[in-house]
């Protein structure tokens, strides 16, 4: 497999660094990135099904292991400063899976406490995502869109520097999609960066993306 090329970014603006990254599943390499530097901002990762977008996002989120080094803001290392790093990196699943014997409220409260966010932030997001009617019900009663809203809410909790949104616009209604665009724009003014994996092109009239990365054949390459 060919290795990804070194992406030249002004060292002063480097926000996220990947070095000697290798991810295998059953000895089959899925992603092999020699070096990748990403600046702060909003970045769109596009790629076909099975190209490795979700795998890449899950490794960044610390959910699955990998070989190599990932650093946020040059210092926070995924492995060496695991807790501090995770405080700064939030992740929303493409297809969230939560225990069906819990409620959305249980999940949000759990994440809220772990991330040390305040109740005001939770109340605001619950209101804006319009989940008041169902979030205290058991998760087994939820549709995929309702489940997605819980995952998106948890991604905006706390004080992250980077939010990873994996296919954030699938399964949700257009009103909620507009809200997600709105939240991205609000958050970027607070110096929060976004990596967004999406099959569909992002709506340029609603959010300005700084870079576009193509994920294909085990590599990640800048296309814009």
């Amino acid at each position: 497999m060919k290795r990804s090329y070194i992406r030249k970014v002004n060292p002063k603006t480097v926000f996220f660094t990947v070095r000697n990254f290798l991810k295998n599943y059953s000895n089959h390499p899925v992603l092999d990135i020699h070096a990748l530097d990403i600046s702060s901002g909003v970045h769109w990762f596009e790629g076909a099904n099975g190209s490795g977008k979700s795998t890449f996002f899950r490794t960044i989120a610390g959910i699955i292991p990998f070989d190599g080094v990932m650093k946020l803001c040059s210092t926070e290392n995924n492995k060496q400063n695991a807790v501090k790093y995770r405080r700064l990196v939030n992740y929303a699943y493409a297809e969230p899976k939560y225990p069906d014997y819990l409620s959305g409220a249980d999940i949000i409260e759990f994440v809220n406490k772990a991330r040390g966010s305040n109740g005001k932030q939770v109340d605001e997001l619950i209101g804006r995502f319009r989940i008041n009617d169902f979030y205290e019900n058991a998760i087994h009663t939820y549709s995929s869109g309702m489940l997605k809203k819980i995952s998106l809410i948890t991604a905006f909790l706390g004080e992250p520097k980077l939010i990873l949104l994996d296919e954030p616009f699938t399964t949700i209604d257009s009103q909620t999609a507009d809200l997600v665009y709105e939240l991205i724009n609000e958050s970027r003014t607070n110096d929060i960066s976004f990596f967004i994996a999406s099959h569909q092109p992002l709506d340029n009239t609603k959010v300005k993306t700084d870079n576009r990365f193509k994920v294909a054949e085990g590599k990640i390459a800048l296309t814009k």
Partner: protein
Amino acid sequence: MYLLILLAAFSLEHIQLASLITSRVELLIVVVIIWALHVVKTSLFFVKIMQQPSYEFLFDVTLLPEKKKWTELVSLQISLNAIFLSYAAFMLFIGIRQGNWASAGILVIANLVYIVLPVLWKHKSLQYPAAFNRKIAFLNFRFPQLPLSKWFFFSVFLLKKEPVYLLLQKLFAAAMIAGIAYFYPTDDYDERLLKLGLFFVASGYFTLTQHFTDYYNNGMLFTRNLPVSIERAFVEYIVNGVLFTLPELLLFVSYLPNNVSLFVILDVYIYIIAAAVFWQTATFWIDIQNTRLHLFLFIGHIALVIILMFKIPLVLLAAALLTISFWQLKKHYYNFEATED
């Protein structure tokens, strides 16, 4: 494993135990009901496996020639029942020797029923795959949805998703505790018998790993993205262990004679909590399917039984288990590759 534990636990008394059970039909019925629960448990496990897309190929067993198909199904059921079948054979031998023909008859009929009925059910279910997608009301019963603290997530998972396992595990623990309480006042081994009994209760927790793995892999993986330290996670596993072993503590305190000191109670209770913690953290560093590991664990248990006979406090073993658990968790937690169903 349970059989081995039972055999080892009552190495001197288990013949008397089997004689007692076969001589009293009401006791034998209790044992037969426990076996029935085991059959229900393995049947639910079969349903769970067959509902997974990755095991859909198993439905092809219906395409086999009739003789081969039935042989496969009967072999499968015998292997699932093996844990009590061998002990049933032993009890049957005792029953016949004592001339307890009613007990012998019950043993034969019950074990035949526990093979034939599940085989017929499995055969019918395999012919109609849609049956596996229907929800089983028993599996999906709901408690009222109350706000739930994270400390209770695993306990609620066991109550709602693995009620049969929980019931069987607690029955096993209750039988062991009642057994040692019954033998204690007459036994020359003094407190060593109590400790051995609880040691074997804790050995039964090895199955906790599989259930904790199911709990963790199916819905809790989002927690790996949270800023939770290993120390905090470890405390959570200790709380899980305390909640899981509460029934044992209650049974232990209520069953035992008054002359058992608080130190002994603490000694064994700390050990069983440590064992529950150890088998939870094993999710991250032990391949529970590894048969060589089973042999290693068995030999390890025998060694520990011998050590316990020299009056080594269980709390020392507890400290060793907790240390190993924490050290291994720290080493493996971030390298753990979860597999979602």
